[in-house]
Every structure is written in C-alpha cells, then in structure tokens.
C-alpha cells in the first residue's frame, strides 16, 4: 500500500460509483463489492489513488462499480496490466479482481509469475468454481464430477489448488474469504492491501444461477483453526490438507517486494547518443 495522505472518516458509499451491477440477485459478487468499499473506507484512501484492474467474467465487472480508477481489460490478463501500472506508478494502490476462469485458466501463467514477481499489489479472485458469464462451463476449480453441458457427467479432471500454487510460486500473503461475510472479508482485504508485496485473496463467491448448490457454502465455511503463519512449510501442509473452507489469513510472508530499476530522470538524452558516435 502506498503512503498517501489518508482521508479520514471516509464512508464505504464514497467508493461506490452508483452504476447498477449486472449481477444476478443473490450473486456473491454483490457482497464482494461491499467488502471492497468497506476496506477502502477503512484504509481511508482517496478513491482517485486506487486502481481496480480486472479481466473478463461476471466477477471482472467490479471496477466500474467502484468510484476508483478502473480497467476492465481482456480475459485473463489483468495481472500483467496491473504490473505495468504499478511499476510505473508506485504511488497508486493497485487491486486486481478476477474469477476462477479468468485467473486460473486463461490467466494461469500470469498468476504464477505475478506471485514470483511479488509486486506490491493485491489480487482478489472471486472463485465460484464455474464460468458464470458464459453460462456454466467448468473452470479449473470445478469438482471433477460436476455435470455441465460442455462436460456431460463431469470433467473427471482434478481441480486446481490456487492457494498452494500461490504459495509455491512466491505470493507474500495468502488468505481465503467467503463473500457472505463482508465484514470479515473487508478486514482481510485491509490487511492484504497493507501487506507489502503480492497479496492473494481467494474469495469463495457463490454463483447462485449456475451453482445453486453453492448456497450451502455459508454452512461449510469456518474460521481457520490456527493463526496465520510465516513458515512456508507449515503453510504448505495446512493448505494442502484443509478442505477448502477454512477462511482467514493463512500465510504472511516476509519477502522483499519487487523493486523496479529506476534512475534519475534528468539525464540529458544527448548522453545516450554517445554510444553511437564514432
């Protein structure tokens, strides 16, 4: 997070654009938006100092519903776009929003490299274990037996474990949240944004339309039984063995964030030409 002047006494409503979301009634993403604006208010950041960057999907529609600068880019590339923004504008607070298809499938390679690169930004994936926007195809986190028109009888393919992959790839902060708990989620987002380096927050956000079964998530989630660790080995064991419903901050690393090479801006351009003079 950047050290800009804090605007005290900000209210969540100050961070809403007033644009009406396209989301289905009951979609978990409504609550995620609420958590975003609550977290921004709690941080007291001027909304013009925040950039919310996304790809494509229901979840990726979130930037325009905030009153921050936003970028709704192409499918799967939000992390790369955000990296280019943050290294050239370190003064901004950069939050990236994605879905399980956007972030883990088409954008999977960028996920690995964003974790590795450890640029100071927060990556939020609203995981509903389905492609919502394209109407119900399996994503990398969909259960193997889940029946869809594109995968009759299920994919029979093992789901992807985003938190473990984030840890192995070098993410500096890892948390899981449930959209139905907007206050807790906002708290975690505040911590994630404050934590230096690349913070990864997976928010279980039910797709009530194509995964009505996910309404049961509210009864399955529970606070993680142990405090966050900074030990990668311990974190790996916990993440590998939990059932996917422990919520809270699970890992806080202490890697130094990425530092772009920067020099002075007053070098005379004629200096550069000397390379070529005979």
């Amino acid at each position, binding site marked *: 997070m950047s050290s800009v002047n804090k605007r005290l006494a900000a209210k969540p409503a100050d961070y809403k*654009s007033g*644009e009406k979301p396209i989301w289905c009634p009951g979609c978990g993403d409504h609550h995620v938006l609420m958590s975003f604006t609550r977290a921004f208010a709690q941080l007291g950041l*001027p*909304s*013009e*100092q925040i*950039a*919310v*960057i996304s790809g494509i999907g229901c979840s990726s529609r979130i*930037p*325009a519903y905030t*009153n*921050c*600068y*936003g*970028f*709704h*880019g*192409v499918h*799967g*590339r*939000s*992390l*790369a*776009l*955000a*990296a*280019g*923004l*943050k*290294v*050239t*504008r370190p*003064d*901004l607070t950069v939050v990236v929003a994605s879905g399980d298809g956007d972030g883990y499938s088409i954008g999977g*390679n*960028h996920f*690995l*490299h964003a974790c590795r690169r450890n640029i100071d930004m927060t990556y939020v994936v609203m995981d509903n274990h389905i492609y919502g926007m394209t109407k119900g195809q399996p994503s990398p986190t969909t259960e193997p037996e889940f029946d869809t028109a594109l995968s009759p009888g299920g994919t029979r393919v093992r789901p992807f474990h985003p938190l473990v992959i984030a840890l192995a790839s070098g993410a500096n902060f890892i948390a899981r949240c449930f959209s139905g708990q907007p206050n807790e989620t906002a708290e975690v987002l505040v911590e994630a944004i404050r934590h230096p380096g690349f913070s990864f927050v997976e928010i279980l956000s039910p797709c009530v339309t194509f995964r009505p079964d996910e309404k049961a998530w509210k009864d399955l989630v529970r606070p993680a039984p142990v405090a966050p660790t900074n030990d990668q080995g311990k974190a790996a064991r916990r993440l590998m063995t939990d059932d996917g419903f422990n919520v809270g901050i699970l890992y806080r690393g202490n890697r130094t964030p990425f530092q*772009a*090479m*920067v*020099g*002075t*801006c*007053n*070098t005379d*351009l004629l*200096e*550069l*030409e000397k*390379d*070529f*003079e*005979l």
Partner: protein
Amino acid sequence: MGALPSISIAIVGSGGAGALTAADALLEAAGAAGWHGLFTRTMGPQIRGGEAAGLLRLAIHPVECLPDHFDLLIGIDWLNAHRFGAEIKLGPQTLVISDPGSGEPPPIVTQSAARVVEIPMKEMAKAVLDGRANMIALGIAGRLLGFTTEQVFAPIEKRLAHKGATAIEASRAGILVGFGAAAGIDFDRHLAAPTPNSARRWLLSGNEATALGAIRGGIRFAAAYPITPATEILEWLAPNLVKVGGTLLQAEDELAAINMIIGSSFGGTPALTATSGPGLSLMIEALGLATAAEIPVVVVDVMRGGPSTGIPTKSEQGDLNIAIYGLHGDAPHLVLAPQSVGDCLFTTQWATYLAEVLQAPAIILSDQFMGQSRAAIERPADVAFIGARTLAADIAGAYKRYAMAVNGVSPMAIPGTSGGQYTADGLTHSERGTPTSGAADHSAQLDKRRDKLEHFNFGDHWASVEGNGNLAVITWGSLTGAAREAAGRAVADGIDARVVAPRLLSPVRPEQMTAALEGVKRILVVEQTHGGQFHKYLRAHYDLPAPVRVFHRPGPLPITAGEIHRAIMGWK
C-alpha cells in the same frame, strides 16, 4: 580504374574465425574516416559459433542496401562457405583472397570469373605471437581498400581494451602482417574520398536506432519478451531507460508484455514493446483493447521470415496483413514502417508521438534486414516530435472520458487526478465509459476512433516521394533504399523513374497518394512477400492510375537494387 563511389567486401570464415569482428572493424574504420557504410552479418543455424559471413558496403553516399556484386571476398577459411553462395555474388571484377591451407574455394568462387589470389593467412598468423588469421585478413582488406594501418587498428584496439596489452599487440602485429601480404596485389577498385564533413558519424543498428527513437519520442516504460530479431531493442532499452528515469520489465510472454504496456500507459507513462511475427500474433487481442479503450502504446514488430517460426534470422515483409488487418472488429490504429537504419530512429519517434497525440496503438513494421544491420550514418536530425497526450485536468462536474470532440481526441484522466475516475473498457461504452450495447453509442464511438486518425494532418512524413518520372516504383520499408538505387540507375539509363514509399501504412492517405502518382504512366510495385500483400493493400485502398506490374518474392535473400533495376528495364 578510377575511384568508385561504393565498394563491397565480404569476409567469411568458420565458427570462431572472427570474420564478423574483422568486417565490423572495417565498417568502423570507414565510418571514422567519413565514409558511409552498411554491414550485415549472415550466419549458419548454430546458436553460437558456426560459419559466418560479414557483408559490408562502403560508400561516399548513404548506404541502404547491399550490392549486386562484391569487389573483394576474403575467405579466412572455406568451411561451409557454400551456404552463403546465394548471398555473395561475384563478378569478373571480384578479387578473392583464399588461404591455400584451407582447401578448395567453394563453387561460388570457382564457378565465377573472379580472380583468386592465395595468401596463407593461417600460416602467417602462426608466426605472430597469439596471432589470429582474422587480423591478417583485416590487414589485407585495409591495405587493399587504401586505409592506413592506424585507421584499421583503432577499432580493434577499442574492442580489445579490456583484454590487455598482449592481445592488443598480437592484433596490431597481425594487421601489419596483413598489410605487408597485400602490398604486392594489384587491386584497382578504390573508394573515392569521402566528402568532408565535420560531424562525427554514428555507427548503430536499426534496432538500436529504434530504441533511441522511442526514448526521444517519450517512451519511459518497456515490457520485454525476447525474440529474434527484435531482442536488441529491448536489451538496449533495459539500461538506457533507467538512465532517463524509466524502467523495463521482463514479461512472462507477449500476452503479458502488451498488457503491461497498456497498464503503464493507462497510468500516464508512454510505453513500448518490441517483438517479431509470432509475438505480434499473441498481442493482437490486447491491441484491440488499446484501440477500444484509447490507450496509446507502441509495438515494434521486427519482421522475419514467416509464417510460424519461419526463418528467424532473415528478413521478409509478410506481417503487413496482420499489422493492418489482424485486429477483430473495426479497429483503426496506426501502422508505420521505417525505411532504413537511420529512419528507424525517426519513424519510432514519430510513431510514439502519433500514438500519444491520437490516443491509439501504433504498430511499427521494422524488419530483420534493417534491424540487425549496422550502419555508419550521419547523425539523424533532431525532430520536435515528442509524445504529449491531451490530459484531463481541473475536472469539474461529471467527467466523460470518451466525450465526442471535434478532432475525436478526448482529454484523458490519469489515475490520481481527482474527479477523473473512470473505468477503461474494451466493452462498447458510452462517452462516460460505461458499458452499453446501444447502437447509437456503438457507432458514435466507432466514428470517433476512426475520425481522430483519418482527419489528422500527418504532413509530408507519410511517405518518401522522390523524383517525378513517369514510371513509379512503389515500395515500402527496408526495400526503399534498393528501390531508390534502382530508380537512380534507371534514370541514368534514360528511364524516367520516381520512388513512392509510404512510411504511414495506416490510416491510408488516398489524396496524398494520388498527388504522389500524378502523371505516372507505369507503376512497378516492389515487395518482399510470397503472396503480394503490399500490392493487394495498394489495390484495396488506392487508385493506381496506370498499368501495374509487381515484383515480389519472399525472403530469405534480400531484394537487391540490381533485381529491381532489371524489373524496370525489362518492362518494354
């Protein structure tokens, strides 16, 4: 024979023989003495080592293409030299220096009328402490071309500065032996004296010129994914961007690279990436995003043989179609092409300026030939094109990022600007930027993005238009130099020829083209593609007011002035 305006030398050798070092040193010596020159290297498929040929042309005038025939060929050895047969044409005027210790010269030599002189370069090198045959070859070439030993030695001394006195001494001794060995050879092809010029020559590749042009135009961020033959642009920018307060980020792939530069530019920092055909293919979707969201970015495509992996180390002009028509939807954007090593600087600077001013992506089509050739040139002139986009400041009331403006360019708010918050979007949007699927907003924004490009005054830089003869050679990119030379020879042969080479390929300039072709009776289109992409492009967008012939062929061999001249003269 008297002094010649231009003279060409090829030096070949197997891996590690140092043929390229010798040729590069010769170019530098010539440049320092005030001549112009062009040096291209050609190599076998090995990653490192392997046979190599340095092709060098020196002249009293700017050199933008290779010669039809070489005046001097030095074979340090002939191992695998047959590979270069198609690229090194010899004639009766050619002198070949061959080492009797390294076998028979290849068919390019034995089947030509060239005169062969044997000099045992390897043996002579053995007599020098730590001596190398390529320094003997350099000495021979230096002597035959009329350089002094000091002129030839200076660039070598510079290159070896870090290796210490022994290495430097060994090279000097080798060069002197070479000078001695060439003393008795009768070689009457001498370069005319350079026109006196107080300014120091520049020695650089097109890729380096591109990179400097980018910085001059205002680029302060680059994202990089390596690919032949574009990597040198990125490698030059890495340390030099930092010197001017910018930075470079290595991307995980080209999908990331293009999105990184969009992110940088969205944040207000002008940004560029460089790639070749395979990478450009991966960037196309996001170039559409930059078009729709009106984010200026610059993408340099240093074209190589295609499709697919093609011929990475050789030139072709086959990416014209993807650059102009590759984006889905109606997506007007800028496409520009430099015409020479030096023009890579100007065109990149201009493209950066245009992208910024017009809030649109610009694709620059350079190619392997000019990208990787090194040239001794006059310092490219300073031009005032420095990218400065129209920013939204002091915003009162509801900000409309995509407001209709007279010239189509609407002020852009940069994150941090209070009251300017908006979401940039690839979805069809309203003036405010909010997504819509309404017909009125869709066509209004399509019009806006088309008009801002079409109505802009690009001035005279849109093309090189030279001469007013009634036969027009229309070409583009790195073929411009060869076309110019061919037209010059045709004029000398009594054919009135002109050259028209657009630097701005998109948006098209129909009125300017009509003016450029005023009065022509014949049109010869020249391009380096298999499918005649440029010819089809011309047919689609321009009125060609006279009978047209097309001379086109694919890479890997460069199209020479001689071939174009023959195409002109053969049109009876």
